[in-house]
């Protein structure tokens, strides 16, 4: 082994900036969640209340437009935040996310795919709670896409939690 005794490098400006960026990222996330929860809840309840007073259902009036506007308004800052977050984490944290997407997300599809086959294979196969929604084919498709995303997120989240707990 080499006998040379190295010293720690100076705490660089670059490192200080990176740490402060990391703090900013989590503060932005916290602030964003509060704004989205309070703002979305307040505007949503106002829109819903106005619809109710006009005798309209949840799929009429401004409610659908509010939902579309809300989803787009939250998507853009979420994408921006995700990129900032990804750039701020180190290689082990990135590896946790990549493994979670590959194995957690992928495995959740592998588990749930056979469960969807009977729905497609048997014409008489019906799920009462879905039938009760009175969904059109388009809404059923939307519901399917939404369910797929939720299942993927669930598998991803579970795998990520286990991965991280094991490495600690």
């Amino acid at each position, binding site marked *: 082994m080499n006998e040379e005794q*190295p010293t720690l490098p100076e705490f660089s400006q670059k490192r200080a900036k990176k740490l402060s960026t990391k703090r900013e990222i989590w503060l932005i996330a916290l602030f964003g969640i509060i704004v989205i929860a309070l703002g979305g809840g307040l505007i949503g309840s106002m829109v819903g209340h106005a619809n109710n007073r006009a005798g309209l259902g949840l799929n009429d009036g401004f409610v659908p437009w509010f939902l579309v506007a809300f989803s787009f308004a939250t998507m853009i800052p979420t994408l921006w935040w995700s990129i900032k977050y990804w750039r701020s984490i180190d290689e082990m944290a990135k590896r946790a996310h990549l493994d979670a997407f590959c194995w957690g997300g992928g495995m959740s599809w592998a588990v749930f795919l056979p469960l969807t086959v009977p729905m497609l294979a048997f014409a008489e196969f019906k799920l009462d709670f879905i039938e009760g929604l009175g969904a059109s084919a388009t809404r059923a498709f939307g519901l399917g896409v939404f369910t797929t995303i939720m299942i993927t997120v669930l598998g991803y989240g579970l795998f990520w939690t286990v991965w991280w707990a*094991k*490495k600690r």
Partner: protein
Amino acid sequence: MKNHLKVLRAGRNWSQADLADALDVSRQTINALETGKYDPSLPLAFKIARLFALKIEDIFEDLP
């Protein structure tokens, strides 16, 4: 893969946080490296070797 990171770090009286700062990774990553729960990428292994002024094979050991 086995490594001597903990011994090397302790020999220099560096804390995990000191080493994490020097390598620009989190303290959790240093802990996972020291306990052998995580193998570093080649760029990180080189960075560690540079910091300790050692060769990679002096720090990391490939176990059969």
